């Protein structure tokens, strides 16, 4: 299964970036093999609006079924929900730790956005 994790760097050892739409990188990790691709999210970091919507569209196109991140706003959450992507919020530690936690069944999925929309 493909897991999307927001990250401050491009490695599995990189710390999780708590921001979703404006995360520096988003890693798409295969939970079985731990193979991954690091998506450059810099185009969204400085987006005027809709960074979360754009990021959600991007990880959906990459075939992710789960997103592990820190905070997720209402528009991003609505997009992820439409894509059928489950969201694990309040994720900390490194990307590898986050994926491990998911594999151990230790991730609780969110029912709603856990951050306010911002203008």
């Amino acid at each position, binding site marked *: 299964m493909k897991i999307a994790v927001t990250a401050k760097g491009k490695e599995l050892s990189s710390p999780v970036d708590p921001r979703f739409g404006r995360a520096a990188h988003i890693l798409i990790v295969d939970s079985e093999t731990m193979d991954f691709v690091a998506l450059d999210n810099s185009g969204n970091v400085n987006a005027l609006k*809709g960074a979360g*919507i754009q990021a959600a*569209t991007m990880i959906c196109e990459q075939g992710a079924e789960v997103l592990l991140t820190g905070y997720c706003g209402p528009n991003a959450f609505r997009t992820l929900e439409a894509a059928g992507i489950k969201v694990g919020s309040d994720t900390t530690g490194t990307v590898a730790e986050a994926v491990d936690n998911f594999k151990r069944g230790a991730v609780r999925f969110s029912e709603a956005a856990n951050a306010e929309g911002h203008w």
Partner: protein
Amino acid sequence: MIISVASGKGGTGKTTVATNLAVSFGSGCTLLDCDVEEPNAHLFLHPHIDRSETVTTFVPVVDESRCSACRKCADICRFCAITVIGEKVLVFPELCHSCGGCQVVCPENAISDGQRELGVIEWGMGTGVPVIQGRIRVGEAMSPPLIRKVRAAADTEDQIIIDAPPGTSCPVIAAMRGADFILMVTEPTPFGLHDLKLAVGAVQMLGIPCGLVINRADMGDDRVRGYALAERLPILLEIPFDRKIAEAYSCGRMIVEVMPEWKEKFRELLQQIKVEILASSWRRKER
């Protein structure tokens, strides 16, 4: 003639100047309160609102039965107000800037006109002055379309005085663009000067003649005056830091009500503005 009263910094006295100017002008002058996020000219002019209209703006509505999920709408939208997830189109109406691009590029004609409420326009007569004010809907983030509607509601034959919002961003530009003169209200403080410079920069880009009113003129320092000299900005009026004016303000009364002799000063201000507009059109011709 359209005079837009702007400031850069908030709280310098835009509304004080705009309302006193409008009342001093006499008949044939309309005041537009374009500070639609917090219109306050009504606190001084006390208009009796006799007409109100809801203003809406275009947002896309997608007919899913016609949509082929081609993504053309999502690709053209700069604001992510429309996106395609798999076969599903998602619209975020509150992000839409109403350009209509999605509708134009849709090859299936699947996008029809929807509406988002921006706020209301209200008409009333207060202290002898026709007032048109915009009030944005609570939760609405985009004020420029409502500001443009307020401006379009005015009779262009009239002398129009616009009470603009503070700052230098899109709402202010919407309240200044197309005006004949920008009356910049400032105060002789470091903050006043800092934001005045930004606002004057915006006015210069718009190419509109501009002059200053210095409010609370006898406090602070002389740096605003120095800046005005260097930039060749005429100082058209100075209003003192006077307890009587502050007391009147706190009761919703204008300067000209408690100090009727000020009516003449505001009329002179109007005359000076006319002269400045003339001079500036001459300067433009000379170039």
